[in-house]
């Protein structure tokens, strides 16, 4: 609560517009799947997947900052929540994806299709 009592209605609708546009772009790309983005590879996965992930993080940022009103919280309270989460999630995801890749490299040659 920022203890400001002026209305944020206009800003809320702007953020909604933004989130909607991003979702529409995601869905459109997911349906069209342009070959150039889908069937090429960049840093371990297709550029299309990277676009999806970046747009997702973009949406997550706006939900947390605007709707959950993190921007109005005290700086170090915000950091206690956000940094902890981001650090642990990055750590876990990095280890598990590397492990998954290793499992594939090790087990896939043993599968007879």
């Amino acid at each position, binding site marked *: *609560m920022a203890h*400001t*009592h002026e*209305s*944020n*209605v206009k800003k*809320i*609708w702007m*953020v*909604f517009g933004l*989130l*909607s546009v991003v*979702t*529409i772009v*995601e*869905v459109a790309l*997911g*349906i069209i799947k342009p070959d150039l983005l*889908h*069937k090429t590879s960049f840093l371990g*996965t*297709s550029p299309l*997947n990277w676009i*999806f*992930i970046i747009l*997702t993080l973009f*949406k*997550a940022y706006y*939900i*947390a900052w*605007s*709707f*959950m*009103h993190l921007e109005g*919280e*005290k700086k*170090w*309270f915000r950091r206690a*929540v956000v940094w*902890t*989460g981001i650090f*642990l*999630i990055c750590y*876990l*995801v990095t280890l*598990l*994806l590397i*492990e*998954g*890749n290793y*499992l*594939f490299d090790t*087990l*896939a040659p043993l599968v*007879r*299709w």
Partner: protein
Amino acid sequence: MEANIAIPSDRKNTWSGGGVRPFSASYGKMMMWFFILSDALTFSGFLAAYGLTRFKFIDSWPIADEVFTHIPFIHGEFPMYYVAFMTFVLIFSSVTMVLAVDAGHQMKKSKVTWYMFATIIGGLIFVGSQAWEWNTFINGTYGAVKTTDGKLLQFVKDGHQIALSDFVVGERNDGRVTHTKKNGLWFESGEEVSNYSLAQIKTSYAANPSIFVRSEQINLEEKQKIIFSREKGLAELAKAEQIVEGANLEVNEYGNTIFANFFFFITGFHGFHVLSGIVLNIIIFFNVILGTYEKRGHYEMVEKVGLYWHFVDLVWVFVFTFFYLV
């Protein structure tokens, strides 16, 4: 000394933390944030495990566009549209929630009431949609065949997947019927017997040269499932041991067993969060109507439950990406 011991109080402050407001956040709001953080770590654990499994089976994971293709009341293939609709419903209910919080800051009781009401309706539409999605997923559309070496074979015609009922002809010829409570020995029912028998599927396949068998394996260049030649298809079909229609925790017609397991587990866990969010919203909704927060002088409870509701939306954004898009 005082900081380290419990101070006797009249118990009115037991749940509010009294007047202590570290970082200018009330006790309740701060604890809601720390709960959300821990819940976010739980969900990220699930999604990371999903990621690990997907990388492990990167050459055979079901393609989402081919699994989630349905819209209620309409026949045909429409990948993604329905989940996109669900995403919108949830984002929109987040907007009405934040509008309720905003109206609460200005102590406008009737506005808070209506926005809370809209949020609850949005939540119910979402949960209903998810129930429909589960139902479609569990019943399946096409049907497939599982071989003795654990591979799943699907059927395609002109490059598109077709259902067993689209090409299997004749009556099943082994005389098996589903064992129900009514006709069985003792009052127990047995496993459901498919409309078709394996022998029937094999003969129908052999008789119809336009049908091909599709493997689970993905051609990593084309990003499409590999379709066998007619001869190879026949050889694979010879190993068939089970007809698979729909999905359960042991087998499913889409591909890897664990794909369905993760689908049930992660969307189910998220759906459970939405459900508890709706219950919380309803409680707060009635409190608003009763004027509880008007008397209290502030609508912070609306804000706290709002945080939880936005979090549920936040998680869905990620589930949507990693289950349906990527």
